[in-house]
């Protein structure tokens, strides 16, 4: 958690986290292609600055909820690289002992309270966590990451109404990447900017460049400071781009080569590197940061791959609070 303005070291640390996420998901993609990743993982490649810029202001006591594209959010919130990767490849040492997988990362100790595969389903859960924080009165907050497509879900609007009505300490972070699956924003809604949905409720909202870490960090910092002071919910819309497909394996016929090339330009990592170089950081130091992150990630990946698989005989654990509870008793 960065209280005051970030130092140069803080920025370097955030660059490291950007690299961790980027390389971590690169490994997910590589192993998915190799058939080592069950299910259909969704990568946040290109959107990492949103996760890092927002989570830099959170502590382990703050709650975070995400959706199907949540690897980056989990890592930025402080989830262990190896335990997270182990979960994504279904190992017993995974965050959820292999029960959840890519779309359901939970790490209670780090305040990573949920990821849902049902678009929009995480929004009211996050509001509930914010309500609990309000009851505790400990200045902690709840943050929920969701995509632009989720604003098509009624529960988004229900949740915003309730959050404003109850003045809940919740930060709505929309990653507007212009697409929902294979369909562009224009075909999903005439409302181009998700922040526009806040106006009727008088909820403060802002649309920012989600690929510029400094912009995200500053905007999130202000919003979160207000939230901790009890000023009520805030909607932060981060305009971003996904460099990868909707899920690993998506042929992306709906995007032209040109679009994809143009998008590469906006890479948040390159962006931050240029900024740091302008501040006098050397190319070699930057390369070193990437190298370290790569080492960390590869070590985590290999550790996860070497980990044991869940014991099939444990498949009926964790359904209820007590074994006496099941479909039938006696």
């Amino acid at each position, binding site marked *: 958690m960065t209280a005051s303005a970030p130092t140069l070291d803080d920025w370097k640390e955030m660059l490291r986290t950007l690299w961790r996420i980027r390389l971590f998901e690169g490994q997910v993609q590589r192993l998915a292609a190799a058939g080592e990743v069950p299910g259909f993982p969704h990568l946040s490649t290109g959107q990492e600055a949103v996760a890092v810029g927002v989570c830099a202001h959170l502590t382990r006591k703050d709650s975070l909820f995400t959706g199907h594209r949540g690897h980056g959010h989990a890592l930025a919130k402080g989830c262990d690289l190896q335990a997270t990767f182990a979960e994504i490849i279904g190992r017993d040492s*995974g965050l959820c002992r292999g029960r959840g997988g890519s779309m359901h990362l939970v790490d209670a100790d780090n305040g990573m309270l*949920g990821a849902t595969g049902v678009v929009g389903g995480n929004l009211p*859960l996050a509001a509930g966590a914010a309500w609990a924080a309000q009851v505790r009165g400990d200045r902690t907050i709840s943050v929920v990451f969701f995509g632009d497509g989720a604003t098509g879900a009624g529960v988004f609007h229900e949740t915003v*109404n309730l959050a404003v009505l109850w003045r809940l300490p919740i930060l709505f972070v929309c990653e507007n990447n212009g697409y929902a699956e294979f369909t562009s924003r224009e075909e999903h809604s005439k409302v181009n900017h998700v922040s526009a949905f806040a106006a009727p409720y008088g909820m403060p909202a802002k649309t920012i460049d989600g690929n510029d870490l400094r912009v995200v960090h500053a905007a999130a910092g202000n919003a979160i400071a207000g939230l901790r002071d009890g000023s009520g919910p805030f909607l932060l819309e981060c305009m971003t781009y996904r460099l990868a497909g909707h899920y690993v394996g998506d042929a992306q016929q709906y995007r032209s080569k040109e679009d994809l090339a143009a998008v590469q330009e906006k890479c948040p990592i390159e962006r931050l590197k240029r900024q740091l170089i302008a501040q006098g950081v050397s190319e070699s130091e930057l390369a070193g940061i990437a190298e370290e992150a790569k080492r960390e990630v590869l070590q985590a990946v290999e550790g996860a791959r070497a980990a044991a698989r869940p014991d099939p005989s444990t498949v009926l654990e964790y359904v209820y609070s007590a074994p006496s509870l099941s*479909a*039938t*008793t006696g």
Partner: protein
Amino acid sequence: MAQKLTFIEILRRALDEELTRDPAVHLLGEDVAVGGAFGVTKGLAQKHGAQRVRNTPISEAAITGVATGAAICGLRPVLEIMFIDFVTLAMDCLVNQAAKYRYMSGGQLAVPMVVRTQAGAAGGAAAQHSQSLESWFIHVPGLVVVAPSSPVEAYGLLKSSVRLGDPVLFIEHKRLYAQREAFVPDGPLPGIGTARIARAGTDVTLIAYSAMVGNALEAAEELARSGISAEVIDLRTLLPLDMSTIAASVAKTHRAVIAHEAVLNGGVGAEIAAHIGHELFDELDAPVTRVGCPFAPIPFAPELERALLPGTANIVAAVRELSS
């Protein structure tokens, strides 16, 4: 001497006591701060504060999600959904989130939440305010389904539900709301998943829950007059289902009739009949018979509603058919 309380008054008392006992308990729902549509929470906001008894907008999906998220974070929310017909709006949260949270998180998080809702047909509430949908929920691993049959039963079962570490769907039948019963709070709270013998008998086992237990008892009374001794089991909880109590009874009577108001097809009775038919195959002297609602929505006109709904007469007829 024991005071007589209505089902509604006893629910209020149980909630009042739980709010007093545990600061984590919070109530929410449409109009609950002013008593709710049926007056169950009347006075509780004044007594326990507006922060703990909260009105919500007409947003069943969001308020169920908010209760779930709060439960994950240590509160014990008791949510009122006015009619079970509207739980259709909260199915994603109940089924995909609340029921699976403990499992998907590998045991890290739990959802100690009670969703109180009101169900059943009476007085021309018509097709969208009269359903009995409990059987959907016994098909969802992670949920608990409770359906009390009387005021006194509701008191203990609601308290046990509030104290449980799992999401509970607590179903209150509108026909029971005005029912009065002498009430002496004593003894331990009922365990979730334990049925009770509402009346002992030897010739046939009548299995029911919620308001239909009253019909089963009436039927037993009537059958007694013609020398048939019926044992009546009040299931209390549908998930978990107390098969040991059922099995012990049927092993004794060798005949079983299951009765519920819900539509017969795909109802809870099917699961019970399938169990009995399998576990007690060699014990049965007659086919397990189900009494339930014929396959149609609940009509508005009283004559039609009456014609469709199963009742005491259907249970008696089913037993007589078995015994003949």
